């Protein structure tokens, strides 16, 4: 993955619009957050291979960025993303890595199911 290039990510988002895609969306603070700091409220969410179609999507912000996808009857969004890759299977892999490089949020789109 490399730091986000807004234009490249926007192009990838546009290329998936209006068709069936598989979504991976995840936020995490790590399973040990409360172990390390008992005052920390641990929370996260994860969905893999949600089958969606969006009308359009946007990447906005100055970095870290936000990405929102407008569905026919709903929304998908992720905040805090700063790295991306279009991999050899044509999947858009976007991640938000924290200051130590650890993954905090992940949003991925693929024309085929994720393994």
């Amino acid at each position, binding site marked *: 993955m490399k730091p986000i290039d807004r234009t490249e990510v926007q192009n990838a988002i546009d290329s998936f619009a209006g068709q069936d895609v598989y979504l991976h969306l995840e936020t995490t603070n790590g399973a040990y957050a409360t172990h390390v700091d008992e005052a920390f409220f641990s929370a996260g969410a994860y969905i893999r291979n949600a089958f969606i179609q969006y009308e359009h999507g946007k990447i906005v912000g100055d970095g870290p960025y936000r990405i929102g996808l407008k569905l026919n009857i709903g929304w998908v969004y992720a905040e805090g993303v700063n790295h991306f890759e279009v991999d050899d299977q044509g999947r858009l*892999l976007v991640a938000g890595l924290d200051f130590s490089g650890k993954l905090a949020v992940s949003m991925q789109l693929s024309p085929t199911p994720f393994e």
Partner: protein
Amino acid sequence: MEKERHVLVIFPHPDDEAFSVSGTVAIHREAGTPVTYLCLTLGEMGRNLGNPPFATRESLPKIRKKELIDAANAIGIEDLRMLGLRDKTIEFEDDEKLTSIFTAAINELNPSLIITFYPGYSVHPDHEATARAVVRAVERIEEKERPKLHCVAFSNNCIQELGQPDIIHDITAVEEKKVAAVTAHRSQTEAMVLDWKEKFENQDADFLEWIRKERLWTYKF
């Protein structure tokens, strides 16, 4: 360390074995004792992707699989079984299915010792769910037939509630193998081992105590 017939190690994530019992395992292997490691997941949800990142969410499991094999080789494990479950989902699996996987392994291997986490004292939900299922599987064996069950605990309250560990293995004799096993899990441990060389050279007492003493609790049914 007592000579075992067969040691069965059960943990959910690649690297769980390295920190906790890789020295113990290496000693059993050097004594010729067969060791089977059931590793439930490939740590797909690990947050360490390198800095700058060398992995993605999708390539991470392939990287961690290779690291797991390297770590197993470092401590001489010949029977490494990757069960194909998914990181952070173990507690949501069917409890009976999980238990029956472990029961089948116990029936097949007839271990005299099983090593896993201590339920209630192992912090990560995957650790807890794995440990609970192992305990269920062992509990179903008639008491006098049961293998020993040694558990790893590290929650903040474990000493307070369980007392001091009743099993302490000094693994100094195989510490290089342990370091190799931990280091093999590069994507997870790279940052952690950066200052180890210096600590060894300085004979840092706390560090040496931590790396050379593997602490386990006999499970109380």
